[in-house]
């Protein structure tokens, strides 16, 4: 059989038992990565809002960084979708003739409005710096900065005060927007009535919780790495505060995902026979060991142990990142691994060797590129905007820590 005539999906699907003849794994690695990235977007934004809205002073050194990080991730969020479409050039039709009965049609609106909120907030946060640069810099860079000012050079006390107020409003508005962006991804899955593993009203909330833990964990890891690379002081108070957020949302994620699993097992509908085989045998390592034990239970345990160290925070956050990725994998690939006939299984095998366009597109290289891109973007943004310059020195840190507990303050 010629490669051109291979059915879409046959390249990476192995079928066992009885599966419908047209049944393949149609949603592959791209759809695993897409909710992972939007999850990081939502989580990072919520973290930055915690400083702006709830006034958590100790989060100040990560507030700007997590906002820009969220934006960098947001820019890359549609790319896995574009890679996934078999007719990517037609994707503009999502804007031309949206069919709002479909959850996917909401993408443009949710995505663009969220983008507007994030961009506006970034503009207000960095406005004084941009204006300063626009006045100083010449040449191309100067032009860019001038364009970025949107023609306003007002840095008076009054204007700065207005900025502060608007940032607060945008950060507050951004929280539900971020929740919507990710909740709707959960809805896309939760509303598929033909896939028993997905079909639960809890899905948007499960996705939201795992989004926040992955976003916060992503910020912890990137912040620690970024500071360590630049040999800057890492503020323990910020890390501790982020870990506290992580713990709360980890608990929520464990509860929601656990409830979902228990209901599937307890109600034991027709699909449970095959679902239990999937969860406890075929996906046992991926789901029980990596997603649950390593990705949620162990980090929670590590974070709850007294006297949190930097190393322990870093390890837990990394584990959470791996666990959430595994969760996306288990949901997307696992859901499709059960044949809709409930009498067979499909196994996903990613094509590694790029011996055709399809194999390349579905392989690890574009995905690897996608996952690295946000960090490259972050690096570029850091060149243009002072993302990391708001660094606490030991005194600042000790001060905010003093606001937390007196005992911690005494240590420094």
């Amino acid at each position, binding site marked *: 059989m010629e490669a051109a005539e291979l059915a879409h999906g046959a390249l990476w699907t192995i079928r066992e038992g009885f599966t419908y003849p047209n049944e393949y794994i149609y949603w592959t690695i791209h759809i695993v990565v897409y909710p992972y990235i939007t999850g990081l977007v939502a989580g990072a934004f919520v973290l930055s809002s915690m400083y702006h809205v709830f006034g958590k002073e100790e989060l100040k050194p990560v507030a700007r960084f997590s906002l820009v990080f969220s934006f960098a991730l947001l820019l890359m969020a549609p790319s896995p979708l574009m890679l996934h479409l078999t007719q990517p050039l037609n994707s*503009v039709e999502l*804007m*031309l*003739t949206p*069919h709002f*009965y479909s959850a996917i049609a909401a993408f443009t609106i949710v995505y*663009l409005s969220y983008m*507007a909120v994030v*961009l*506006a907030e970034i*503009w*207000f946060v960095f*406005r004084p710096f941009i204006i300063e640069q626009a006045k100083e810099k010449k040449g191309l860079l100067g032009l860019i900065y001038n364009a970025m000012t*949107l*023609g*306003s050079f*007002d840095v008076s006390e009054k*204007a700065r005060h*207005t*900025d502060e107020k*608007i940032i607060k409003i945008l950060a507050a508005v951004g929280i539900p927007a971020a929740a919507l962006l990710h909740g709707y991804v959960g809805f896309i899955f939760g509303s598929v009535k033909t896939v028993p593993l997905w079909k639960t009203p809890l899905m948007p909330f499960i996705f939201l919780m795992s989004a926040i833990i992955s976003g916060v964990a992503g910020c912890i890891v990137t912040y620690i790495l970024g500071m360590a690379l630049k040999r800057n002081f890492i503020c323990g108070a910020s890390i501790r505060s982020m870990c506290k957020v992580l713990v709360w949302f980890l608990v929520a994620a464990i509860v929601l995902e656990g409830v979902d699993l228990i209901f599937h097992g307890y109600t034991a509908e027709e699909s449970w026979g095959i679902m239990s085989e999937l969860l406890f045998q075929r996906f046992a390592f991926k789901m029980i060991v990596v997603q649950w034990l390593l990705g949620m239970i162990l980090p929670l345990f590590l974070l709850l142990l007294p006297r949190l160290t930097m190393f322990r925070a870093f390890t837990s956050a990394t584990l959470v990142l791996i666990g959430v990725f595994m969760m996306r994998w288990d949901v997307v690939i696992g859901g499709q691994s059960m044949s809709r006939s409930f009498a067979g299984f499909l196994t996903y095998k990613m094509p590694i060797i790029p011996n055709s366009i399809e194999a390349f597109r579905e392989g690890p290289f574009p995905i690897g590129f996608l996952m690295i891109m946000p960090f490259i973007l972050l690096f570029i943004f850091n060149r243009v905007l002072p993302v990391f310059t708001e660094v606490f020195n030991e005194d600042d840190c000790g001060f905010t820590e003093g606001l937390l507990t007196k005992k911690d303050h005494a240590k420094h």
Partner: protein
Amino acid sequence: MSHAWRPVFVVLAVVVTMLVVRVIFVPSDFAAKNGDYKYQWHRLASEQFWKDFSVKHKGREFCQQCHSELVDKIKDSGHQNVQCENCHAMSDPAKKSHPINLKEDFGYLLDIGVDRSRELCKRCHAELSYRPPTYTTTKGTVKFKMIDPTKHNPGVECVMCHDVHTAGFKTTGK
């Protein structure tokens, strides 16, 4: 209000651009037919596309134009419900063997050939205990003839003895 409105203008500009683009690029016949946005939101020209799709299986009436003898024969036989194209339309264009170019002369698009393999006959006549034992023709309910291909003259083409078009034995052996 001064500078704070500037991002709003940017957003408005984007929205207006998108609306303009929409007006230009949405096909004029894109509509929710009968007001049914849920199930009938589509480009109306697409319906015509499917209506204009080429008809390929033209049935016995088409073959009859030249092969009236064979068609008459099969109409009276146990194979009366079997279409010519069932056996003679080739899924592999390489097996096309019709002497006249049907595509150019008649606008007929299928590849016609002759398949004498046992596999073809086995599709109906290999014995399976769960195959219906009878079938219906104009002559009433007829017993469905099935054989065990491993025991019934294996290795020999069915058409050695059987005349497909009469669904009986060949009278003049070749």
